[in-house]
């Protein structure tokens, strides 16, 4: 078992915001079972603010902690702010990740960004 920070263990033990938003404004899915991790993020956006974020995650301790942390970081942010959350910020907020687990933090931010892009595309289509 890798050496995880206290923060990672805390989020792994008590992951926040698990679930799937019904009729979400954006959906972002990344990963597959072959690489070992899969994440599905759903978001609710109101007045350009990420009002709610939920996720389902299949993956290791780091993947679960990253999902939980990303959901906390994104909630209440504007769409632009949430789009600017970086993998590095997620890893830092978790007190660091073991070297070979850094890709998990990439997945978390990627899934969030995908959900936001999905929202922006849908919004663009609606406005046309």
């Amino acid at each position, binding site marked *: 078992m890798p050496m995880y920070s206290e923060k990672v263990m805390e989020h792994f033990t008590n992951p926040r915001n698990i679930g799937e938003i019904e009729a979400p404004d954006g959906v972002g899915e990344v990963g597959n079972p072959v690489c070992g991790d899969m994440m599905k993020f759903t978001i609710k956006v109101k007045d350009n603010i990420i009002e709610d974020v939920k996720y*389902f995650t299949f993956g290791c301790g*780091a993947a679960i902690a990253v999902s939980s942390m990303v959901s906390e970081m994104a909630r209440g942010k504007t769409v632009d702010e949430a789009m600017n959350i970086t993998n590095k910020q997620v890893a830092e907020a978790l007190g660091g990740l073991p070297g070979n687990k850094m890709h998990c933090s990439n997945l978390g931010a990627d899934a969030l960004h995908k959900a936001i892009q999905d929202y922006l595309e849908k919004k663009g289509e609606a406005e046309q």
Partner: protein
Amino acid sequence: MKTINLDYTAAAPLDEKVLQVMLPYFTEHYGNPSSGHSLGEKPREAMEKARLDVGRLIGAAEDGTSSIIFTASASEANNLAVKGIIAAGKRNGNRIITSAVEHFSILNQLKSLEKEGYDIVRLPVDSSGLIDPGQLEEAMTDQTILVSIQVANPEIGTIQPVEKLAAIAREREVPFHTDAAAAAGWIPLDVEKMGVDMLSLAGDQFYGPKGSGALFVRRGVRLRPLIEGGIQEKGLRAGTENVPVIVGLGEAARLARESLAERSRQVAAFRDKLKESLFSEIPHLHLNGHPEKRMPRNLNVSVEFVEGEALLMRLNMAGIYVSSGSSCTSQALKSSHVLEAIGLPPALAQGSLLFAPGLESREEEIPYITGQLSEVAKLLRNMSPLYHQYLKEGNNNANVQ
């Protein structure tokens, strides 16, 4: 918190009786077995007794037609067998036949040899982990210089038909090596009946000390040492012998042989009860390995829809120690080559757990183990996209490759 070790193949405590036999050889009988004077006598005698005890554990004939070479691990024994026979260069040819499910101490050295131009054939296994002897037959050519196939798999526990496989090699006078690290001390082994030319084992797998291993070598098999120097171990392993550890290996082998049937029955009974309990209480479990032809202390189960490291961490928090073949638990982030070889879909390989009970395992612990795994599985499934997809669509796409 109470703790339950179900990872005995990783490490087991040294048998107290073995420790007591070892102790005098650290201090009182500290002599060098190679010494010509009296100090060497006791250690030399003890070492030869250990050699006999290890030989007896694997049914080696006591007529001088074979030798036991002490090593520091089964990995070293595997390396001495493969590299040693190649370096001896007595055979013409470049083909080495092995299986896809061998231990890394076989597979990784063969990968290196492949880069040097050797023709390495890795026999496939079926979904239960078994090798088809017919495929060995087909792979044999006049270029074949060695066959190395394990007795039992350390991860899924499947026991190979070594007797049949070795007979195929013997018919063509090709040396046959077997890695018995997962099997020795737990199932009856008889090198004469199996017809193997070399066999590797490790003492820490049957309550002996870590750092103890041995290679059985039949007379006529020419090896070159990995470590050159003095003439210890018939010149096949230079360096002053680690007498206390060798004595410990011998004593562990003696005790294992004495109570082999009883030990085997005991761990198998625990394993069977645990399996029954897990499968009756927890839905969507998948048994990995052969249903019958498996090591008595091996239960390998995939928990569908969830990943192994998360399971392992949660169980660890509950004081239950297991291992997993998930890619996330390996430093290299590669899932188990054994689970891949049996054709297990990636999602199931990621959710694999190995329960390896020991003589200390108690059946009273089973309800707690099952209860904890049931909770953990529920919790992790509840956050798994694969599980929710299954609930929605009713089909398990995760099981499709």
